[in-house]
């Protein structure tokens, strides 16, 4: 098996060499290779199929120009299609309102608390905001302490109520606190939950109803496999979230979940997180993500050269 799509397509180049036009016959194996590469990168099975069908439609009949081989043309079509799918219009981050409210939600261990800290630090230092972090995770052992430690590291206040076992009222009280302390943005960290946990999904939906957030961010681990679509769909149905945060991109995962999620829920990826330290919040670049999924760091130069 090949390690990445570059190698795969390079071998496919050989098959296609000398053919001036891409047609149904000479493209079949290449399409299969692309589909497998996407699945290897954790793109959802069905989405990989649909995606390659689209690519095939675009490719068949395209005329290969002098300087570019059919294989290279395929790579370009695939990459452009990926970028287009994951990009779309510039994602805004809405901080209007006094205070503006941001709700953070996602599966267990995805990186919500860490991201909450990063976002607070970013808003404080880059945007001149005055944030309040809210510990609305009443379940995980030491969840409040964790957020307090982060708040201390970045010099941002943390609102918590150790005896209160109602996430909704904690969130509501936090907003009152923000108003009285002149904080203009409230970031609510919630407990990790499974999409099929009815009681827990109802809880976060209730928090949403109670505080009417400007932004609801769905935090997802970029190492997630095929299940990413189910989870994203379920959270979106329940919360109608405004954006996605992709975490742990400092790893070596190909991150196909990003494509699956974007494809499924059509919501922008607003931030990425690539590190445990609180200064590593970053914006999302569709182009980079496309290259990562395809495992082809150097392919653009290849195509550009051609």
């Amino acid at each position: 098996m090949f390690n990445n799509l570059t190698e795969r397509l390079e071998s496919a180049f050989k098959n296609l060499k000398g053919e001036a036009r891409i047609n149904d016959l000479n493209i079949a194996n290449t399409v299969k290779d692309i589909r497998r590469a996407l699945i290897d990168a954790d793109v959802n099975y069905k989405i990989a199929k649909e995606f390659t069908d689209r690519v095939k439609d675009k490719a068949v009949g395209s005329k290969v120009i002098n300087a570019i081989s059919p294989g290279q043309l395929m790579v370009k079509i695939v990459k452009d299609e990926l970028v287009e799918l994951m990009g779309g219009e510039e994602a805004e981050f809405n901080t209007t309102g006094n205070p503006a409210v941001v709700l953070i939600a996602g599966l267990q261990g995805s990186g919500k608390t860490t991201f909450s800290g990063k976002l607070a630090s970013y808003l404080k230092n880059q945007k001149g905001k005055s944030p309040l972090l809210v510990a609305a995770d009443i379940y995980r052992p030491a969840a409040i302490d964790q957020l307090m430690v982060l708040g201390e590291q970045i010099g941002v206040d943390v609102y918590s109520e150790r005896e209160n076992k109602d996430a909704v009222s904690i969130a509501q009280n936090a907003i009152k606190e923000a108003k009285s302390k002149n904080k203009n943005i409230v970031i609510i960290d919630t407990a990790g939950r499974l999409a099929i946990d009815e009681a827990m999904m109802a809880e976060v939906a209730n928090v949403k109803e109670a505080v009417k957030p400007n932004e609801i961010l769905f935090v997802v681990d970029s190492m997630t496999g095929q299940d990413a679509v189910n989870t994203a769909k379920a959270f979106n149905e329940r919360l109608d979230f405004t954006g996605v945060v992709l975490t742990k991109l400092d790893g070596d995962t190909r991150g196909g979940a990003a494509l699956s999620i974007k494809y499924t829920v059509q919501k922008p990826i607003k931030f990425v997180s690539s590190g445990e330290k609180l200064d590593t919040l970053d914006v999302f670049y569709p182009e980079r993500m496309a290259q990562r999924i395809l495992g082809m760091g150097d392919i653009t130069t290849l195509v550009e050269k051609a």
Partner: protein
Amino acid sequence: QKTKEGFLSKITKAIAGKSTVDEEVLDNLEEALVTADVGIDTTLAIIDRVEKRVARDKYVSTGELNKLLQEEIENVLVDASDDKHKNFDIPAGKKPYVILVVGVNGVGKTTTIGKLAYNYKQAGKSVMLGAADTFRAAAVDQLTIWSERVGVPIVKQAMGSDPSAVAFDAVQSAVSKNADVVIIDTAGRLHNKLHLMDELTKIRRSISKIIPDAPHEVLLILDGSTGQNALEQAKHFTAATDVTAMIITKLDGTAKGGVVLAIANQFSIPVKYIGVGEKITDLIVFDKHEFVDSLFNLTR
């Protein structure tokens, strides 16, 4: 439940009485496996085995075919060298039994340690915990809460102190207190970070200074919703710490954890337990048959 049977019977009906498996059936099988995160390579390997067996054995009844499919997939998984873990028993001459718990960030290491400690204690063993995650915010507090829940002692130092020193302390203390089991938590780390992987090797070495053949067990915790990257995790953690077994967590969700088939296929590491929730009782002994069964549960 219904859909699972629907899928299996669809496959078996299409194979029954034939000496070859038709394309559509194989496509269905491929979809089921890939959607469970088994990965392309391992899926193709399994399909190949099924095809060969069908050609050879010419099965007639659907009942037999169900069994064949299940068997071929189960055969990919490796067995643990002994069954002691099933009853939370400890091999003879390994006291204290030293367990080192490793894995990438947020997979469930600390929670799983709480559950393991509880189970060992229920089995009548005296257990100690070592808080060698001195990095992640409130990691020590979190493990401390688990130690209180279970009612076992914990060895800890200040945040930021050397994790090898904590591990050393914990094992030494387990020896002097004559404990049966000592379980050491480590900070989550991505396997592509060399200095953090070196740190694990160092932790391992400082444990073996006290007990030469320890750690007796190095458990790699895998998040059940992780995709193909888990293969890289298995590879690098094994290189750094000689992983002896895996635990797959969060299987109470919709993810299937099929990537362990790929891992077993490549690295021959057995799975010992699975995590099915956040409660202290939510750890169960891994059962091949049930696991493979659940791979075909396509209801969601």
